[in-house]
């Protein structure tokens, strides 16, 4: 029996430590997931203006740079009963959707793919054969032998330099790498292209939000206005200007949406399917807890209750039961709760209870090692993360949860994508509950949102063409219009899954602010009964081909797309209760 430690887990956001115990035959028998960084953003939020909470919470994570800002303005708007104009809804959907598509493509190529593709092998590929690989599946213009030869040459020169930089000390001799050289070359070429693609398509966020990372938000709508002027017929239309959203800006947004979708359809989807076909054994391991949760996203109408009509629906699945998608209420105190038996945190009533975020309290209580250490003790607190539960269960959140909820709710596009992918691969539906199933689900989730971007953009331009230019509702921006006391919850589907912010406002100041973020659900440490969270359960039964190279564990951890950026919990000294913000999307 031995312990495998991975710290730092790289190619993720933030600071994560994994420890796995293996038995005599090298099979993982238990695993431990520890978040090792904490900042304290919530005490910093205390007593500040709720209107600026978006800017603070946005800095929880620069990778999911849209989602905390969005969730924060929604939480404050929910508390105030503050509605936003139709155009603002469309623009927010475009910001959220484009973030998701960019982030998930970047996650697949920059953060995940090197677990499966071997760059040393890629440098030895035949470029002509490489160009044949996707001929039947993709119209991508770069898939030519001349292009692949230029990439291969670049890579070969880089390796010959002897300085491997980002690629140094990879497990390039590990027998777990199964792709032929040509597949490796194609995917490495797309690794490079994805870098170029993401910075190009994200320019649309600068049109609506001024910049990315960390675009503008505001409560009551969006901060950008349309720059309008009368046309020849005297009708106001988006016109050239040095500020605001003008026609050139809208044209750029359209081109970004087109480029986003083309890359997803012609590169990401065929690449994931091709990769999966070489690693079918990874459709049989890596399931987490078998329970899945979504909060939902992309409001489809202007209903004051955002959850009423969502493109990605809200729901909970227990024990893989897709025929019973259960409803979820973020305000009910017995549904979402946070526990702390394994966390470096305390509750006034002890470590054995769970608290709904509106009642949440968190007191930092670091009892971990204070000298260099080799191993953490799973029988004591071992993480800055809390352990969230829904109705007493660990839940997995993220693209797989979304795809399963949409599949269960019979969303036609998702059913078609899933059924045809599984048919191509010759797999049954149970294959989805796995490491590779998670990667496949992420590509399908990306595809359906990439398709929808065009729909939202068309709705936006049609609404503007119809004479509605409004992007902000000023009615409740002034705190003098607010009630003395109120509280609200904001939600979204971040790329990594369900994200919620719970805010309490007293006398126009934040008195309590709490977040439960996707990675808190997935990276959760053991609960009161000692049951591990999704990462910890997913790693069980893995075996390593080479005992000093935890490649197999990284594959499964990366399939969840971890984002650790904080597990930040803080006491509110005035009320002697705790404010907390957990982590990043």
């Amino acid at each position, binding site marked *: 029996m031995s312990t495998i*430690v*991975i*710290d*730092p887990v*790289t*190619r*993720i*956001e933030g*600071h994560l*430590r994994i420890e796995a115990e293996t038995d005599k035959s090298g099979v993982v028998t238990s695993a431990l997931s520890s978040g090792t960084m*904490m*900042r*304290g*953003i919530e005490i*910093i939020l205390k007593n*500040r203006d709720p209107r600026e909470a978006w800017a603070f919470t946005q*800095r*929880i*994570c*620069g*990778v999911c740079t849209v989602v905390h800002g969005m969730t924060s303005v929604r939480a404050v708007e929910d508390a105030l009963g503050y509605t936003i104009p139709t155009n603002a809804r469309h623009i927010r959907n475009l910001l959220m959707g484009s973030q998701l598509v960019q982030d998930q493509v970047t996650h697949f190529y920059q*953060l995940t793919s*090197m677990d499966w593709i071997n760059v040393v092998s890629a440098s030895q590929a035949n470029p002509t054969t490489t160009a044949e690989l996707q001929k039947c599946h993709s119209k991508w213009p770069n898939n030519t032998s001349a292009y692949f030869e230029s990439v291969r040459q670049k890579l070969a020169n880089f390796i010959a330099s002897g*300085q491997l*930089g*980002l690629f140094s*000390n990879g*497990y390039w001799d590990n027998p777990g790498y199964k792709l032929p050289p040509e597949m490796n070359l194609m995917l490495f070429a797309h690794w490079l292209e994805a*870098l*170029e693609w993401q*910075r*190009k398509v*994200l*320019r649309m966020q*600068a049109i609506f939000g*001024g*910049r*990315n*990372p960390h*675009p*503008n938000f*505001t409560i009551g*709508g969006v*901060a*950008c*206005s*349309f720059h309008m002027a009368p046309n020849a017929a005297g009708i106001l239309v988006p016109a050239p200007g*040095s*500020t*605001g*959203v003008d026609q050139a800006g809208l044209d750029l947004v359209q081109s970004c949406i087109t480029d986003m979708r083309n890359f997803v359809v012609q590169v990401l989807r065929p690449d994931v399917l091709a990769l999966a076909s070489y690693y079918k054994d990874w459709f049989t391991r890596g399931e987490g807890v078998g329970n899945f949760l979504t909060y939902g996203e992309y409001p489809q109408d202007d209903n004051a209750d955002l959850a009423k009509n969502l493109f990605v629906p809200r729901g909970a699945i227990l024990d893989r039961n897709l025929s019973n998608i259960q409803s979820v209420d973020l305000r009910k105190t017995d549904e979402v709760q946070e526990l702390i038996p394994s966390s470096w945190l305390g509750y006034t009533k002890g470590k054995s209870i769970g608290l709904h975020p509106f009642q949440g309290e968190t007191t*930092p209580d*670091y009892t971990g090692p*204070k000298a260099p*250490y*080799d191993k953490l003790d799973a029988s004591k607190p071992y993480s*800055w993360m809390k352990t969230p539960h829904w109705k007493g269960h660990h839940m997995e959140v993220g693209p797989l949860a979304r795809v399963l909820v949409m599949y269960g709710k019979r969303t036609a596009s998702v059913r078609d994508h899933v059924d045809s992918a599984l048919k191509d691969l010759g797999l049954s539906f149970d294959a989805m509950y796995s490491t590779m199933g998670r990667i496949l689900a992420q590509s399908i989730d990306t595809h359906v949102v990439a398709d929808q971007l065009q729909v939202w953009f068309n709705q936006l331009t049609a609404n503007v063409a119809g004479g509605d230019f409004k992007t*902000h509702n*000023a009615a409740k921006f002034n705190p003098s219009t607010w009630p003395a006391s109120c509280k609200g919850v904001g939600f979204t589907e971040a790329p990594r899954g369900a994200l919620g912010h719970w805010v309490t406002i007293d006398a126009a100041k934040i008195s309590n602010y709490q977040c439960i973020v996707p990675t808190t659900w997935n990276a959760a440490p053991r609960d009161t009964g000692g049951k591990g969270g999704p990462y910890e359960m997913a790693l069980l039964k893995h075996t390593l081909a080479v005992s000093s190279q*935890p490649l197999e564990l990284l594959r499964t951890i990366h399939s969840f797309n971890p984002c650790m950026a904080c597990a930040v919990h803080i006491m509110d000294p005035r009320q002697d209760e705790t404010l907390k913000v957990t982590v990043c999307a």
Partner: protein
Amino acid sequence: MKAFTQALGAAQRPSVIWMSFQHCTGCSESLMRSGSPLSDRLTVENLILNFISLDYHETLQVAAGAAAEDARMAAMKANFGKYILIVDGSVPTAENEWWLAVNGHSGLSLLHEAVAGAGLVLALGACATFGGIPAAFPNPSKAMGVSDLMDKGMIDKKPLINISGCPPIPEVITGTIAYYLVNQAMPPLDALGRPLVFFGKTVHDCCPRLDHFNAGEFATSFDDDGARKGHCLLMLGCKGPDTFNACTTTKWNQGTSSPTQAGHGCIGCSEPNFWDKPGGVYGFSSGFKTGDGTCAAPVLPSLPLI
């Protein structure tokens, strides 16, 4: 430049060690946004394949765990006294030192060790330069930026460039690295250690709304008639007049737009302690500072074509 190009052909690419502490990864994301069409040389892929050897970067490197730490230690040893250390994120200190640990070591001890062998330290972003959001009142983790740690003797004093901003502008990151590679020297810095070429003007100096400010035309609410006409955002809390940065000259996302151009006031993210300005994000900015008086976009340092 010619000598550099020739040297590059023969010599090793300079080793760069990028270490992240209390960070949000926004600085690395910003790095990834640098490049064409604004500058086809200042892309992350051109830098890492042709000009630097990025020997440690937790978000992008392939190796993990022990293999990643071994790569870092080997690069630090082989390039001792010479490597460029890029730091993002602040560092928790004192009794809260263990609020950040990597591979069983505290963040502070890791930074101390890495700075000792660095030829140049590049502090990237609001947190590494001036403490940033973790150090905002009341600074629960006792977080500090690199220059404060150097001043207090908690890490060695080394040549330091501060590239502030939350996050910094993509081409300000890559342009500063390129300047150092091409000139083998630090660029001229302002009193806060920031490259003057990028931090010599205020956001207000070069704002596309400046003419309206001069005419006394102000937006008083988001999307009001003034906002739609591009009027000045000062009444909505804009901190442009006392914020030095290139947002309104270099702009963001390869020159596409900037926060004030797109309708929200500047939040002042390149200045020390901007999270704690009296009045907050939407309060009135009272400090007016003057930059160098010109509004040409900074000329980006050019890397040779490979």
